[in-house]
């Protein structure tokens, strides 16, 4: 009797277990679903962290660097005093060239003094030194070049925007405040007040500064004049070399390894080593470049040709690996089809396989190029860290002349004391990122164009 009673509910329970309602999830299903939900949440959190990091990075760079694209200019009429620029009065280029930039500075100071007097600006403690350091030392040189080029402006009063010093410039970018100006040896409170007064009357303007991307680098005490021109040209030359060398060599190597080479121990070793090369630290390539191209082959230091060769070596594994992956992804049925109608191996590869692999090849190449564009360490070792103010000439000669490179310029500027250089370094990073962005855009467009379905 007791047996029967105890057996009854057990059987009901057993029946319930075999025929459960679909409307109620059992414990196992709930656990599984919870695990899935948790996993999705981890994924979302990971992406959110990545996005936040990216946004923070871009925000700080844009905040610190956008100032580099704007520059403060002084719009005060300058009288070109014939007695100063042409002391002999004969308008002779040689004699005029003998006048140093210092003397031009005195004209600028005088023009500012005149402006202060004319506008009746009263500032306590405004002295000669404040006028002198108001202008960038670049402004005198620019004025001198202008006079030497157009001697007819001598004796006239011209209205040329002159570059303000980095401290005056900083007053309009929040870098220099009244408090910091007071204790700064290179500026003063009086100068700060003068700048305020001038801005109010429209004699000081901050405008977009193309010079930042076109002019060469400037020395330590002329941050306001420093530009990226030479670095951009140097980087462009190196990218040209990398593209011209790495793309054909890389693609040819991959095609041979993937389509023609016999599969044996030797090709296995080559394959493994190509993968290993992709992971070699870039500074090692720099040392290799120094030893092979400069010391052994005797190529010039700081030249884009050497940088380009080193970056080519660095980029090759990336291109080979991605090209081989792209070739592998082409379905074998296409090869069969081409061979089946009597195409030779080479015709098969060049008429059918390579065009289908093209999106992958181009993506790999552009990623490799972008990597090379941002590479700094190997360039430091081959002397591209030098201070270069002269533009290299057009290729091919220009490839052998000293130049800088974008990432090296960034590195260079972050080393300098003046905080204006920090702003310029951030600005250079913006330019670098813009180039990388453009390259990736090109990669996407090319991939879209070449993409075919089969």
């Amino acid at each position, binding site marked *: 009797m007791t047996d029967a009673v105890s057996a009854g509910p057990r059987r009901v329970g057993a029946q319930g277990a075999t025929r459960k309602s679909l409307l109620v999830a059992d414990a196992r299903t709930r656990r599984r679903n919870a695990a899935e939900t948790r996993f999705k949440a981890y994924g979302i959190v990971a992406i959110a962290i990545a996005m936040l990091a990216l946004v923070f990075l871009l925000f700080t760079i844009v905040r610190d660097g956008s100032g580099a694209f704007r520059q403060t200019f002084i719009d005060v009429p300058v009288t070109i005093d014939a007695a100063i620029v042409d002391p002999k009065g004969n308008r002779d280029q040689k004699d005029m060239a003998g006048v140093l930039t210092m003397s031009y500075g005195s004209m600028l100071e005088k023009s500012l003094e005149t402006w202060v007097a004319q506008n009746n600006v009263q500032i306590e403690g405004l002295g000669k030194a404040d006028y002198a350091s108001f202008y960038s030392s670049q402004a005198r040189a620019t004025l001198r070049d202008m006079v030497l080029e157009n001697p007819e402006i001598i004796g006239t009063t011209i209205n040329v925007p002159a570059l303000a010093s980095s401290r005056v410039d900083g007053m309009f970018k929040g870098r220099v405040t009244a408090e910091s100006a007071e204790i700064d040896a290179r500026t003063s409170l009086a100068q700060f007040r003068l700048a305020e007064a001038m801005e109010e009357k429209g004699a000081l303007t901050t405008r977009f500064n193309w010079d930042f991307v076109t002019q060469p680098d400037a020395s330590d005490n002329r941050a306001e004049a420093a530009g990226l021109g030479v670095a951009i040209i140097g980087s462009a030359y190196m990218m040209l070399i990398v593209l011209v060398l790495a793309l054909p060599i890389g693609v040819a190597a991959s095609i041979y390894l993937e389509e023609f080479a016999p599969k044996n121990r030797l090709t296995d070793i080559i394959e493994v080593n190509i993968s290993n090369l992709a992971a070699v630290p870039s500074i090692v390539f720099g040392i290799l470049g120094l030893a092979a191209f400069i010391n052994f082959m005797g190529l010039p230091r700081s030249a884009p040709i050497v940088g380009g060769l080193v970056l080519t070596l660095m980029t090759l594994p990336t291109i080979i690996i991605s090209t081989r992956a792209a070739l592998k992804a082409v379905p074998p049925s296409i090869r069969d089809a081409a061979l*089946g109608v009597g195409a030779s191996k080479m015709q098969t590869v060049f008429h059918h396989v390579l065009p289908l692999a093209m999106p992958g090849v181009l993506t790999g190449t552009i990623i490799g190029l972008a990597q090379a564009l941002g590479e700094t360490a190997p360039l430091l070792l081959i002397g591209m860290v030098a201070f270069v103010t002269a533009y290299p000439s057009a290729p091919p000669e220009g490839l052998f002349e000293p130049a800088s490179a974008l990432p090296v310029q960034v590195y260079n500027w972050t080393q300098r004391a003046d905080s204006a250089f920090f702003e310029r370094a951030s600005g250079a990073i913006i330019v670098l990122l813009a180039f990388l962005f453009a390259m990736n855009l090109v990669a996407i467009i090319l991939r879209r164009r070449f993409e*075919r379905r*089969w």
Partner: protein
Amino acid sequence: MNDMRLAERTVDTQGKPIKFSCRDVQVYYGDKHAIKDVNVDLEDKTVTAFIGPSGCGKSTFLRCLNRMNDTIDIARIEGKMILDGEDIYDRRVDPVQLRARVGMVFEKPNPFPKSIYDNVAYGPRIHGLSRNKAELDGIVEKALRGAALWNEVKDRLNETGTGLSGGQQQRLCIARAVATSPEVLLMDEPCSALDPIATSQVEELIDQLREEFSVVIVTHSMQQAARVSQKTAFFHLGNLVEYGTTDDIFTNPQDPRTESYISGKIG
């Protein structure tokens, strides 16, 4: 291995000339002996079907006939395969020329991701079969007509070949193979990826192709072999077990293995 071979095979040539004559063909994939002692004479203007269970070597043997096995590093072929009196495995033979004479259609339709016109024109172009555009147009049209595809695609020759339906794609591949005017057409399970309607179209086409070419078709479907072929070869475990007219093979098989395969007991 000789005991696996049928001692007597009735090879009835029906008066048609022999296109391919294979003697003592052995194929090895590395250590694996995939084809053993195959002797077969394939007739001109005849559809020959290779049947047999999966892995019996019928596709392997087919791929030997235009040296497609050359692309597999570990494959090794012995014996003689004589096409019109010339051994295709002679050292002097360039497989590229051979493949223009022995065309191939594959299991999965594999048109190039190019226009329909370019798909068909590719073979004639690389072999230099036409002197000018008009001639090439003529070849393309003839090949597409030959593949019973012309009426369906004549207005969209510039559209991509991969946009066609499966059956059309397979007929396009046949047109591509026919365009180089081969003498032998090899078909490796050409209908296995097609629906019944497309299959019957392709089968009809195969019957027409017989008038011009010697067709060799590998098929899993015995019904298909019975429908399209005049001669049938049954392969089993790398041996050619029985070869004869299709009627004989299906109605009066000599070998017990053939009989059990046809009646569905093995395979």
